[in-house]
Each structure stands twice: as C-alpha cells, then as structure tokens.
C-alpha cells in the first residue's frame, strides 16, 4: 500500500531511476536526496502561490490619491479559509509520511553490515573493530560494504556526521546509539563532530579511509 502511494527509492544497489540512475558516493544519501527534491518542489510552489498574489496586490491596490484612498470592507470568506486550511494539512501529512518511509531505511542497517564501535571524547574519536583492533581518528572501511556504527561517549555529548552519506547520530555518554553508511568510492573523506563539545569542537574531525576489501582485511590484521 505504502509503496504505491509514495516514491520509495530503491535499496542500495537497486533501481535508482529517480536520481538519474546515479549511485551516490555513499549510502544512504539517496534517501536524503529524494526528500530534499520533493521538499524543494513543494516549497517553491507554495512560495509562488503566496508571493505572486501578494506582489500583485501590493501593486494593484496601492494607495492613489483620489483614486484608491480607502479599502473595501471585506472581513473574511468561509470557503476560501477552509480551502487554505485543508490543502496545507494534506501536503504536510504527505511530507511527514514520505519522510517516515525514507527514515526507516536511513536508520536500518542492511543485514551483514560491519559493526564498528565508536567512542567520542574531548576531542577525538576512537574506532574499535570486531576483532578488537582500535584506531584513533581514522575510520578504515571497505568500499561497497555497509558499516554500522555503534556510538557512545566517555565524557560529553558528541555527534558523528558523514556529509557524503548524509547521515548522523549523537554519541551520548551512558547510551549506545547507532547509524549506518556504505561508501561506494575509494578515497578519503571527513567525519565531523556535530554536537557542541567545548573548546576544540571544530577540530574534532575524523578521517574516513575507504579502501578495497583486500587492503581493509590486511589492515585489520595488523596489530594496532
């Protein structure tokens, strides 16, 4: 039912026709791109629907001495007021439901994702892999494989944001939160702290090193 009513974008690797068939640098960015495009279209239309009549009225009904000195005595209109209550209501309910559909996928890591524990501290990141290997400020991940981050913090609240994957989540002391992503292109990217955490908040950057599976396996086996 939901699939027929809403544009549900394809799963990673699935058909991505709505985005011009392009695979994003990192998943789950396609879900964000889609909600962004929908919002932009809706917002521009609403803007024009309000702004154009407003500008027209400002010109058409401007004060002119001797010609237009007093307004009409118009106090309201029941029909039109119902119309501009009902239409926005339908639009926003649709938007929230579309967001709900996308969000579920943005939050649910695909099966078989590589779990990595992330620990934020003032002002550095520690990444711990399933075999116990640890790295500071460098997040090594294999290309083309989903990664699930399990975040926590040793001191204050931090947040980990990956611009290419267009996703983030807070790292809260005393809790474990989660997020997932998958890079589709080898290279170096940045991860940012997105929750204010003191003096060097803006310096709390991580480097995401996306390497081939072979290279990743080799790195993982080296002692830290």
């Amino acid at each position, binding site marked *: 039912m939901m699939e027929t009513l809403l544009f549900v974008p394809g799963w990673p690797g699935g058909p991505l026709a709505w985005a011009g068939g392009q695979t994003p640098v990192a998943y789950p*960015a396609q879900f964000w791109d889609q909600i962004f495009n929908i919002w932009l279209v809706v917002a521009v239309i609403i803007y024009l629907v309000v702004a154009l009549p407003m500008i027209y009225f400002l010109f058409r009904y401007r004060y002119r001495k001797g010609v237009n000195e007093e307004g009409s005595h118009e106090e309201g209109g029941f029909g039109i007021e119902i119309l501009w209550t009902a239409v926005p209501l339908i639009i*926003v309910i649709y938007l929230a439901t579309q967001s709900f559909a*996308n969000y579920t996928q943005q939050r649910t890591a695909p099966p078989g994702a590589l779990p990595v524990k992330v620990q934020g501290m003032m002002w550095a990141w520690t990444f711990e892999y399933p075999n116990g290997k640890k790295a500071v400020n460098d997040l090594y991940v294999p290309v083309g494989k989903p990664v699930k981050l399990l975040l926590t913090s040793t001191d204050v609240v931090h947040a980990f944001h990956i611009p290419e994957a267009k996703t983030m989540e807070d790292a809260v002391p005393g809790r474990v939160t989660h997020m997932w992503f998958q890079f589709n292109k080898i290279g170096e990217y940045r991860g940012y702290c997105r929750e204010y955490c003191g003096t060097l908040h803006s*310096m709390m950057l991580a480097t995401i090193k996306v390497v081939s599976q072979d290279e990743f396996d080799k790195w993982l086996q080296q002692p830290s």
Partner: protein
Amino acid sequence: MQEAVAVQTPWFRASFKEWILTTDHKKIAVLYAVTSLVFFAVAGLMGLVIRLELTSPGMQYVSHDFYNYLLTGHGAVLLLWWAIAFWGAFTNFLIPLMIGARDVAFPRLNQLSYWFFFSASILVLITLIPSQHIKMMWTGYPPFSLNDGAGPTVLYVLIIWLVAGSTLGTGVNFITTVLKMRTPGVTLGRMNLMIHGLIGSIVIQLLGVPAFVGAVTMLFLDKYIGTGFFNPAVGGDPVLYQHLFWFYSHPAVYVMILPAFGVFSEVISAMSRKPIFGQKSMMIALWAIAILGFEVWAHHMFTSGMPDWLRIVMSYTTVLIAVPTGIKIFNWVATLHKGAIRFHTPMLFTLGGIFMFLIGGLTGIPLALPSFDIHVHDSAFVVGHFHYVLAMAVTFGAFSGAYFWYPKVTGRMFPEGLGKASFWLMLVGSNIFYFTQMMVGIAGMPRRYADYPAIPEWITLNEIQTVGAFILAAGVVLSFLAWIRGLKGPKADRNPWGSPSLEWTTASPPAPHNFDKFPVEVPEGWSPYHYGKRS
C-alpha cells in the same frame, strides 16, 4: 473635546528618581525597550565578530574559547534580551492602552518584574569579565555544562532564575489585566490581535518556564551539590535535560513570533485601510499555535539517541504547526486584497517580515522531517532557517511595531527616509546573509564551529555571508539613528495612522493616567479594525 485639566509631567521629563521608582506601565515599557535595545546592539556586535572570524578558515581574530563565549552570548542575549524582552516593552506599553485601562492589575509586581530582569542584565555584563565567560552555548547541554571548561554554570543558572522570575511576574500580571480590566465593549473576541499575540506568548511562558527552571536547577544541583540527574557516571541521563529544556525552549520560539504576528496584523490592516481578513480564524490559529507548540519539542532531538518511534510522532505533530501558520499568512495576503495600501516604514517592515517568515516557515518544514533532518541537524542550515524566523520575521516585526507606535510613545514622528533606507538595507543584507548560510549548511558545514576545513565552496559561501551581515548591520544602525533623530522630529498627532484602536484615541504621548475619562467609552459595534468603505 476633553483635555486633562491638571498638566502632569510627560514621561520623558521625569527625573532619574522617578524612573527608578516608577510603577507606571509606560515608563516601565520604556525601561524594557532601552535595556533590550542596548543588549540587542551588544549581541549584534558579538555576531559581527563571529561573522568576521568565519569569513575564512583558520583562527584570525579570536581564540576558540572566546569564539565559543561570543556564540553563547550572541544566542542567549538575542533570544532572551531581544526576541523575548523587547516584546515585554510592547506588552507593558500597549496592553493597558488597548483595553482602555489606567494601568496594569498589579503595578508594583510589574516594577519588581522589570528589576528582576535588570538584575539578570547585570549578571550578563559580569560574563564579559574574562574569567567569567560562559561557553556552554545558550542551550547549556550537560554533561558539557557540568564541565569546568564550560565556564561558571552558576551564572547561567542565576540568569535563567532571574529572567524566569521576571517572566512569571509579568505573566500573571498581564493575564489578570486583560481578563479583568477591559473597558466595556472590548470583548476577548473583538480586542486587538496584538493583545492575543502578547497574551498567547505569556500563557506559553507560564506553562513552559517552570520546566526550564527545573532543568537548570537540576543542573545547578548536579554541578555544585553532586547529585546525578544528568550525570551518566552516577546513573543520570543527559538526554533528560534536553527533553526538559526543549519542552520550554521550543514553545519559546512562539513566545517570540506570536507578538510579531500581532504587529503584522495591526500594521497590515491599518496601512491597507481594511479590516483584518478572518479575524476569528486569526485568533483560533494563534491559540492553536500556542497549544500545538507544546507537542513538538523533541524535533530538536531527532539525532539525540531517543527512540525512533518518538522521532516519527514528533515529526507528525511538528508539521501540523504549518497549518495554523499557513492560515495566518494567507489571511495577511487576503487583507491586502482590495485595500488602499500605504507604504510607510512600519508597513515595509511588516511586508518584509511576512515574506521572510514565509521562507523561514518553508525551510522549517524539512527540519520537521527526520529523513531530512538527519543530514542538516546542527548544521548551518538550521542556523540560517531560524535566523529567517528570528532575525528577520521577529526582528522585522519588532522594528515594524517600534516604528508604528513610535509617535504614540514619543509624541514625535520619526524620519521616514531613514526608516525606509534602513528597511531596504536590512532586507537585502539579511537575505544575502541567511540564504547563503542555509546553502553552506546543505553543503555540510556544521554549526558552532570556530574553524572549518578549507573547502573552496564553504569559503565562498562564508565570504558572501560576511558581506550580507555588514549590510544588515548598516541597516540596523540607520534605524537606531532614525529613532534618536525622531525624538527631535515634528510633533505627532494622536492618531497619525487613522486607526480606531483605543491606544490612538488618547494623547501622544499618553498622560500618566492614560485616558481622560474612565470608563473609556467605545462606540456600538466597535472593532480595532474598523476600516474600509461601507456600502
């Protein structure tokens, strides 16, 4: 024509002692306005230093710590001393006049409220001392705010306590005034939408401020007594603070915007020479916003680690707010239809404010969608969005109101040319500034960053923002000049805008006792929006 027989000194001739001891709502309003404008200027300057520092990557002018202090000060002062307190001046000045009352219900409580606020202002000045810088951002999230690197938590807590005392005092006072002291004929349904806006925001404060005060009190206990409300090391939960904080601090944005809605309604109706379109639906929409505003707080916490189902619930409640706000915008536009529109300075600020609120609203909708928010949360996009609402819609509303009632408060007319020049500079400057700020946020730039990596796109967008910020600042300076020069301007009539609203029926500036005859009489079928040709 009845004039007061006994000539009493108008407010601007009052001695220093009279100012300090006054219980007159009009003098107290002027005290609020002046205090608020001084802090507006200071926090604006802080904003300019922040902007200069962000123009290019690297640290050029200030240290990381000082930058964080500036950001905390800019946010806290503009929210509490400008976007909330400046409306305190309107509440004090206008409400008794608009309902035809001699003063407020409890003048001494009103005086006490102002001096609580004044004491908090002194504490803010203390934070200027280098060792006393507060660096926890206006949100004061623990556990960071429990950390010594955050600055003196006690100052933050005391400031909130004092401001809250002032707010609650003002709240009970004005609710009583409006319920009990309206002159016969001014019914709740007929009275000015400005009063509904101001009282709506006061009701929100009465319901919400206690949660905020509770949160900072727990912060105080955690930091100095060693309790563990928010400290995970002893079983507390930092996310609890975020819930308590936003339970008030989200509705607080409606505290700031509802009075601006009131100004828009008064000005657009008076300057179009038409009754406000759909007065009843305007009233219902305003109160719907005030009530719905309490069901949406956790949209500030879409990435905080709270359960996903709660994020979805809050997403639906948040988008619903768009419906009553939409009604208000459509009604303002419809008010222009078949009007006779005069483009005086207050009208320009109102129209600009509505346009900018439209953009602020449309960029707020995606922030209510967790699927969108997941990329732009705590980014410059959020900052750009809320500056469209707060720095533009609210500030333009406040400026519009200041110009509109300037002749009533001072008895003089401001220079129109300066006012209009100020408007165009502010409109152009702030659009350049905040639109590019949203763009750099979409491009990924986080907020609250003193420094940022040298990404060419980010640098260009930051340079443009700084240019916009200085144009905006120049516009603000012109308005200050207009208000100062206006004090020596030509004498204003009782009713320069030809409005039937009650505050315009008394002298400009009003006598200390407000009206010459009590009870103030209003004609049969009176409405503050009684404009327009009747056929």
